[in-house]
C-alpha cells in the first residue's frame, strides 16, 4: 500500500463499504432497515463522487454529487419511509431461501463478478478500475435481493440498490456519465418510485396484503370465472 494516495485508499474503502451494505441488505428482514441501508449506500456514493470530483477536477461531478445527496439520501428514503408507514408493512416474510443459503450464493456471485471484472479492469484507464468488480457484484447482489424477497417493498429497494451499483460502476470505469444521461436516469427512478407507490396502494386495496404471491392467483381467478 506504499505510495497509494489517500483519495484512492478512501475510494477503495467506499467500494468495500458498498459491497458490505449490499450483503447486509441480503440478510435483513426488517424493511425499515432495508431503506436505511439504501440511504447509507447513497451516502457512500455521495462521498465517492466527491472524491472523484476532487481528483479529476470535473465540476459537473460536484453537481452529480449534490444530486445524489438530494435524491438518494434524502428524497427517496423519505418517500419510502412514508410509504412504509402508510402501508404498515414493516417486516418481510421468510425469504425464499434461508439466510445461510442466500449468503452462500452471494459469495459465489461476488467471486464470479470479481473474476469477470478482471479483464475489463485491464481495459479501463481510471485509477479506480479495480472497483468495477465490486460494482458488478453490487448489481448482481441487488438482483438476488429482488429474487429472494416476497414483499413488493423489498423488491423496490433491491431495484434502487441495483441502480446504485450501476452508478458506482460508471463512476469507477469512466469517471461519470454525461450529465444528460444522469438527469434522465434520476428522473426515471423518481417517477418509477412514485408510480410504484400508487400501485402498492392498489395492490393493498385488492388483496389486503403486499405479499406478491397474491398477484399470481389472478390467473386462477380469471380461469375459474371463465369456467362458470
Amino acid at each position, binding site marked *: *500500500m506504499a505510495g497509494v494516495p489517500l483519495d484512492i*485508499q*478512501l475510494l*477503495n*474503502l467506499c467500494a*468495500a463499504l458498498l459491497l458490505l451494505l449490499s450483503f447486509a441488505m441480503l*440478510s435483513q428482514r426488517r424493511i425499515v432497515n432495508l431503506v436505511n441501508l439504501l440511504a447509507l449506500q447513497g451516502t457512500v456514493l455521495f462521498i465517492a463522487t466527491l472524491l472523484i470530483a476532487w481528483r479529476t477536477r470535473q465540476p459537473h461531478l460536484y453537481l452529480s454529487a449534490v444530486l445524489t445527496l438530494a435524491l438518494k439520501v434524502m428524497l427517496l428514503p423519505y418517500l419510502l419511509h412514508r410509504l412504509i408507514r402508510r402501508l404498515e408493512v414493516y417486516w418481510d416474510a421468510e425469504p425464499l431461501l434461508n439466510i445461510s443459503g442466500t449468503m452462500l450464493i452471494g459469495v459465489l456471485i461476488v467471486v464470479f463478478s470479481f473474476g469477470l*471484472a478482471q479483464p475489463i479492469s485491464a481495459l479501463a484507464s481510471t485509477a479506480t478500475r479495480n*472497483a468495477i468488480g465490486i460494482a458488478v457484484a453490487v448489481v448482481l447482489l441487488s438482483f438476488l435481493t429482488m429474487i429472494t424477497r416476497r414483499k413488493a417493498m423489498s423488491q423496490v429497494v433491491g431495484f434502487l440498490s441495483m441502480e446504485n451499483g450501476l452508478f458506482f460502476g460508471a463512476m469507477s470505469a469512466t469517471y461519470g456519465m454525461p450529465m444528460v444521461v444522469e438527469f434522465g436516469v434520476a428522473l426515471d427512478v423518481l417517477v418509477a418510485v412514485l408510480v410504484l407507490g400508487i400501485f402498492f396502494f392498489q395492490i393493498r386495496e385488492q388483496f389486503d396484503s403486499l405479499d406478491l404471491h397474491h398477484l399470481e392467483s389472478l390467473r386462477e381467478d380469471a380461469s375459474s370465472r371463465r369456467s362458470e
Partner: protein
Amino acid sequence: MRPIEIITQLLELVVALAAAPLFVGWINQCRAWLQNRSAPSVWLPYRNIRKLFHKDAVIAEGASRLFRLAPYIVFAAMVVAAGIIPSMGTRLPLTQVADAIALVGLLATARVFMSLAAMDTGTAFGTLGARREMMVGFLAEPALLMVIFVASLISATTALPAITEHLATQTLGLYPSLAFTAVAFLMVLLAENARIPVDNPATHLELTMIHEATLLEYSARHLALMEWASALKLFNYACIGFALFIPWGVSTRGSAPVALLASIPLLALKLAAAGALLAVIEMVSAKLRVFRAPEFLATAFLFAVLGLLVHLLLGA
C-alpha cells in the same frame, strides 16, 4: 537465542498470567459503570482464584482421570498460546515452534479437552454443554483461520510476530480487507469467549449455558485453573486482535530494549480500551437463541471471506 528474546518471552508469559484476571475484573467494572451500579473490586477474580485453590476438590462419582487431568492441559494450552502471541514484542523464540495455525490448534486442543471433561461427568448438563461448546467451536475455528489467512496473505507468512511486524511497519493506510476481517474477528472473539450475544458469562440457568455448563462440575483447584484459563483465553484473543489490527507499540526487531518496557503501558491502554468496548457491546446486545449462534458465526465467516475476496481484488 539472544537475551532480549528470552526476556521478551518470559515477560510476556508473566504479564499474561498476571494480567488476565485483572482484564476480566476491568470488564466487569466497565459493565457495572454502564449499568449504573457499583462494581466489585477489580481484584476480585484474583481473590476468587486464591480462594478456590484452598478448597477441597469435590469430584463427581463417575468421573475418570481425564476429568482431573483436563484442567491442567487446558491451562497449559492457554499459557503456551500466550507465549506465542506477540503482545509486547515480536522477538519470541517460541513462535519458531508454533505459528498462527498451531495457535488455532492449541485453542482447539483446549476446547476439545474441556468438552471431553464435561462429557466425563455423565450428567445431562455436562453433555449438553459439551455439545454446544463444540458447535460454537466448529464454526468459530474456520472463521478464525480465515481471519489469520487474510493477514497471512498480506504479510506472506503465517508466523504471528512476522505478521505483526509487517503490519506495524507499513505506511499507514486504509485496508478495507483488514476492516472486514476485524469485524469478523470481533464476532469470533465474542463467540469463543462466551460473551453476550452468544453466551452469558454471568448466567446461572443451566439450560442456557454454553461455556459455564462445561465448568459446572469443577471445584477447588481444578475450577481455579479453568477460570484462570478462561481469563487467559480472553486475554489471548484480545492480544491476537491487537497483533493483527492495532500492531503499533509492539517492540519490533531492531528496536532498542527500552521499547519493550515502553510497550507495557501501551498494552495496558489497549486492553483498557478493549475491555470498555466489550462491556459496551455486552450492554447493547441481547443474548441470541442457541440456534441463532451458528448464523452469527456464519456471518463472521462471511465477513472474513469477503475480506479475503476484497484483498484479492483491490490489493488492499
